[in-house]
């Protein structure tokens, strides 16, 4: 349980030189060539409560970045700041900026609809629409004009469900209600739904926290498959999960980024005492 030498099950090639030695507030001297998301002194307030303090970090493309930290540390707020899901909440305010491949997502005049097409999201609680399995996947693609004609749409639905490793389980009942699926299947359906819109980035807000261990394992395997094509940011309470699925890990505490680095390094050799205390289970 409290073994600090947690190893990811798969050996990863060190693809990107995200500077491990850099302090979180410090920008790495050499910006990685394939930078997906970058936050610059990003702060966030709900009314008068400050939820994020000057977050500066970089997330590389086609890698999995895990956001960990105790409840209320701001990791979900940060995740939801990337596709501006927090916009729905009255009384919010931000400072600093987040960029998606160099483009500010907070620039005035930006259409959040365009942003959210490029940055898909999977939620903690699976939230399929009260429609058929087919329609759940097809709806977003159709609304966003991604498939012309019935055949193209059929193909896209099949492809997305296969990507989400759900096709074999539902191919014979696509017209049935999505609400009849099990919790794990619903969550993979939500992933398929997000993939059908063909995003570049996939945000996952504790996608497996309501699932049993077997369904969780499926989601984790899926994340590993998907990172070939997508940049994935995952919020998780489960540190083993972060260690298993992610390439990079950011540790948030009380609204601040304490430490970010390669997952292997962060879990085996954290720089910060608070990180070590958290990952070894001494608090949080």
């Amino acid at each position, binding site marked *: 349980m409290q073994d600090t030498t947690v190893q990811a099950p798969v050996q990863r090639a060190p693809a990107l030189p995200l500077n491990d030695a850099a302090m979180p507030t410090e920008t790495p001297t050499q910006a990685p060539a394939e930078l997906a998301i970058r936050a610059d002194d990003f702060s966030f307030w709900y009314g008068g409560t400050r939820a994020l303090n000057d977050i500066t970090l970089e997330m590389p493309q086609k890698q999995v970045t895990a956001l960990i930290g105790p409840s209320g540390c701001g990791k979900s707020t940060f995740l939801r700041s990337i*596709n501006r*899901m927090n916009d*729905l909440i*009255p009384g919010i305010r931000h400072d600093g900026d987040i960029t998606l491949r160099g483009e500010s997502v907070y620039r005035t005049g930006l259409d959040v*609809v*365009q942003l*959210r*097409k490029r940055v*898909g*999201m999977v*939620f903690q*609680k699976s*939230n*399929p*629409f*009260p*429609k*058929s399995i087919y329609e759940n996947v097809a*709806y*977003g693609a159709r*609304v*966003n004009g991604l498939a012309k004609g019935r055949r193209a749409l059929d193909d896209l639905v099949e492809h997305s469900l296969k990507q989400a490793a759900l096709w074999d389980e539902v191919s014979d009942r696509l017209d049935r*209600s*999505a*609400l*009849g699926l099990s919790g794990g299947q619903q969550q993979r359906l*939500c992933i398929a*739904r*997000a993939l059908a*819109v063909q995003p570049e980035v996939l945000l996952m807000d504790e996608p497996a926290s309501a699932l049993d261990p077997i369904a969780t394992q499926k989601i984790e395997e899926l994340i590993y498959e998907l990172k070939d094509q997508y940049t994935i940011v995952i919020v998780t309470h489960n540190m083993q999960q972060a260690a298993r699925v992610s390439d990079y890990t950011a540790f948030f505490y009380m609204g601040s980024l304490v430490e970010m680095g390669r997952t292997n390094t962060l879990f085996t050799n954290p720089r910060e005492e608070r990180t070590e205390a958290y990952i070894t289970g001494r608090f949080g």
Partner: protein
Amino acid sequence: MSGPAIGPMTAPQHAAPLDALSFRDRRRRISSRVWLALTGVAAALTVLPLLLIFFHLLRAGLGSLNPEFFTSVPAPVGQPGGGVGNGVLGTFLLVGLAGAMGLPVAIGAGVYLAEAEGGPMANGIRFITDVMNGIPSIVIGIFVWAWVVVAMGGFSAFAGGVALAIMLLPMVTRTTEEMVRLVPREMKEGALALGFTRWRTTLGVVLPAARSGILTGVLIALARIAGETAPLLFTAFGNPFWSAGLGEPIAALPVQIFQYAISPFEEQHKQAWAASLLLIALVLAMNLAARFLIRSPYRSR
């Protein structure tokens, strides 16, 4: 991890047996039962009036129900027979008119209130709809008389429809708002996260998810206005003959019941009972439909 091994356990000696009740225990138990029984009585009293009404109407009105009663217009005073066929038609027409005029507005307003949540505009509208809900229906009748009947130069089915639509508005607005609010926020966020506009999210995801609740509210409201008399007295007015023209006075079941009930003729009193039975059967049928018919095919398991 490994605590002391759990050995054989013995019960503590001082504990009193579970069935040893003190005076206070007994008193508490009795008082609990008495209060529970009283709420049961209250619940029974609540449904008693409906049972009594139904029983009485069956006794007083069933005898006058026959095919002619449903298909013909009222017989001239003093002659036996006749029916309320024109009133049934008129009631359906008036309710249909009110629905056609009122429902799109009410459902739209309900969605607006749910989406705008606590804005000053929304709070104002919410307050006003609550006030509207409390306006006596006779006042709505008089208002529509002054603004529609007088302007159009005569009583009409259209004016009756307007009066009923005004009654419908606050009821359906508030139930729609409640039902839209019940849609989980996660579902709305799921749609927005796919790059849907707010409008598309509401139309394509939120409203379908709230559909069965909204339709239930609509049916209950329609049943409610189907039985209204006062707003029709100075608007639709009533008509002893067949009429389906929007510009003419039109018969309605509740108005016919009222006119028969205040007439001095025994034959008409009987017809009033029978018409009451018919009206309550219609209203009950609509309520039952609201309960059983409208089940979304995609409700959860």
